[in-house]
Each structure stands twice: as structure tokens, then as C-alpha cells.
């Protein structure tokens, strides 16, 4: 697979949110605004890339039977580093994203990529894969966040578009499920048109 396609496959063909249907918890929980979705996506990209790198480095040295616990320890360590960095340099975003930052550890995308790709490929390829899937995830989260923010607060990235209030339900729990569902419908329609 060419290096460029490693980066771009995460956007449409293997989009983690709309095609692989992974990482639903953060997709629903952190997309109350475009900025939050974007921030969460970048945080996950950071973890995905670093953990892919670490795991592809050590994969050959790890006995098969303990590989899952080892991967989990490495991923958890990367997430902890992220937590510390965010607390120091982006405290407001850290407070907003709350519990979903440590939950990146159990984000199926991260462990899934480690198992399926990073453990079997070179460090460079694994890095590209991590960044690619991370970019796709960031894109999905930002899209969902933008729509929810537009409909729910009548603003985009914090800039108010009109003087009225939005439809509150979209920034609350039910709205998350409904918006995601409808975006998937559109995505499915788009895919069937293209193929």
C-alpha cells in the first residue's frame, strides 16, 4: 500500500466512525461543539500514532500470549502522558473533555489498530497508519461536532451565527445519537452512489 494511501484511507474507505463503527463513546460524548470534537480527535490521533509506533517497535520481542496486556500497558502509558500534557498546556479543553481522555485507553480503534496493523508492520508504515486513521477520526468528530453545534447552539467553533438560541436537544444526549444516525445514513447514501 502506498504511503499516501495509508494516510487517506482513514478518511473515507476505512473511516473509523462511519465505516468501521468504532469509537462510538467519544463520538457521542465529546461532540457538543465543533472545537470539542476537533480537540478530542487530535488527542486520539496523538495516542493512536504514538502507540502504533511503540507497539510496532516492540512487537517482535513480545511473546504472543502476553501481547494484549503489554499493548494495553503501552497505550495506557501514552494516554497518561497525554493527560499530563493537556493538564499543563490545554487545561480548559482537558476539563471539557473530562473522563473521555482516560477512556481513549479502551477506545476500540487504538487497541484494534495495534493488534491488526502495528504489530505486523514497519514503524514508518505504522506511524502513517496511526496518523491516517487519526485524521479520519478527527474529521468525523469535527463534522458531528459542527452539526450539533450549528443546530443546537446556532454557532460554529464558538462564533455565534444568529441572535436566537438553537434547538437544545442537539447538544444533549438524545441529539448525539440522532445526529450520528442521520450522518451515517447520508454516508451510506454517498457510498452507494460512488460505488
Amino acid at each position, binding site marked *: 500500500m502506498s504511503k499516501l494511501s495509508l494516510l487517506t484511507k482513514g478518511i473515507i474507505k476505512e473511516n473509523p466512525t462511519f465505516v468501521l463503527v468504532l469509537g462510538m463513546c467519544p463520538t457521542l460524548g465529546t461532540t457538543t461543539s465543533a472545537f470539542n470534537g476537533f480537540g478530542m480527535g487530535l488527542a486520539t490521533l496523538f495516542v493512536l500514532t504514538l502507540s502504533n509506533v511503540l507497539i510496532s517497535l516492540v512487537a517482535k520481542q513480545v511473546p*504472543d500470549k502476553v501481547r494484549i496486556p*503489554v499493548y494495553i500497558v503501552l497505550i495506557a502509558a501514552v494516554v497518561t502522558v497525554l493527560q499530563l500534557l493537556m*493538564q*499543563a498546556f490545554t487545561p*480548559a479543553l482537558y476539563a471539557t473533555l473530562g473522563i473521555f481522555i482516560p477512556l481513549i485507553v479502551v477506545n476500540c480503534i487504538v487497541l484494534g489498530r495495534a493488534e491488526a496493523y502495528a504489530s505486523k508492520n514497519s514503524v514508518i508504515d505504522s506511524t502513517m497508519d496511526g496518523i491516517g486513521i487519526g485524521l479520519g477520526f478527527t474529521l468525523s468528530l469535527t463534522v458531528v461536532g459542527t452539526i450539533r453545534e450549528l443546530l443546537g447552539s446556532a454557532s460554529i467553533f464558538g462564533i455565534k451565527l444568529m441572535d436566537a438560541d438553537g434547538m437544545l436537544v442537539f447538544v444533549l444526549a438524545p441529539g448525539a445519537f440522532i445526529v450520528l444516525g442521520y450522518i451515517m445514513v447520508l454516508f451510506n447514501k454517498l457510498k452507494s452512489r460512488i460505488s
Partner: protein
Amino acid sequence: MAKESSLKNMVFTLFIVCLVSSTLLGGAYALTKEPIEAANIAKVNSSISGVVPAFDNDPSKEIFTKELNGKSFNVYPAKKGGKIVGYAVESSTSAGFGGRIMLMVGFNTDGTIFNTSVLSHSETPGLGDKMVEGKSNFSVQFKGKNPADFKLAVKKDGGDVDAITASTITSRAFCDALVTAYKVFQLCIEDQTKNKNSNE
């Protein structure tokens, strides 16, 4: 090809990985400790600077606490040129619709409220959360009012406060936090006068 999965190999690998990870994390923690502290102080200072008159000291360094009804409250003095120009009181109430509301209330030395800022809350978005500055005019009505003659209760309860439409409980809780803050402020003023008298 991965190493053979003998018990010795498994335990060894797991041990090494845990050791290296813990060491790296300890290092990361040590490196980020100061920036994290600095970020926390910056957060406190920014919430203070919105609610008291202009100051040139570092209120978070001069923090002190006052006891009221068995609870401890943080107070930050704002000074200009060495003289106190206001107090920022970290008040709270557990009477919110969704639980605890934490407020930073800034008083001028004459007792008038300079401004308020919501630190944390769990009120309903679109209803109770209108008490947050910028979301409605609710919090603006307290600016410049002196609790000595502005009754801190909603009009429904015989006070002077315009409640948020359909959010009486949140409005009442907000007033409750303000009343607590004012009582703490009065304790501070008592101290200030006592110190002044003892210095003369």
C-alpha cells in the same frame, strides 16, 4: 517472528514493559508538575480578575479562608498599591437543580457586588445554565448592588431579584450562594476593621 511464549519470557517481558513505562511516566509527571501548577493558578487568577476591580497583587498567593456555619470558604484579596480594593469570595450552594453550584463573587470594599462568575454547575442547559455570564442578563442585575439594601431573594420570595424564566430553583440557589458570599465578606471586613483599629 515473536518470541516464544514460555512463562519466563512472558513474565520477563511484562515486567520490563511495566518498569520502563512507570519510569517514563514518572519522568513525564516530574516534567509537567510545574506547568500544571502554573495552569491551575492562571485559572484561579482569571476567574478572580473578572469579578473584582483592577488589582496589581497576586490574589492567589494571598488566599485565606473564612469559616461560616462549619464550612470553609476561600477568599482572595485584591489590592492596588498595597491597599485592598476588593475581595473575591469562592462561594457555593448545594441547592442547585442539578447539584452544587460554585460561584466566584467579587465585592468592592464598600460591600457592593462588583461582578460574579460561575465556576462550576450541573444545571440544565438552556434553562438553569442561563445564570452563566453571557448566556442571559440574569447575572448582570447584581453588578453594583449592595446586599445591605438589595434583597438577595427572588421576587417570588419577596426579594429584589429577577429570576430566570422557568428556572426558579436555579435562581434561588444562585441567590443562596450570593448570601453566603456576602456573609463571608462581612467577616473579612470585620477583620479588616479590627486590624486597622489595633494598628492605630
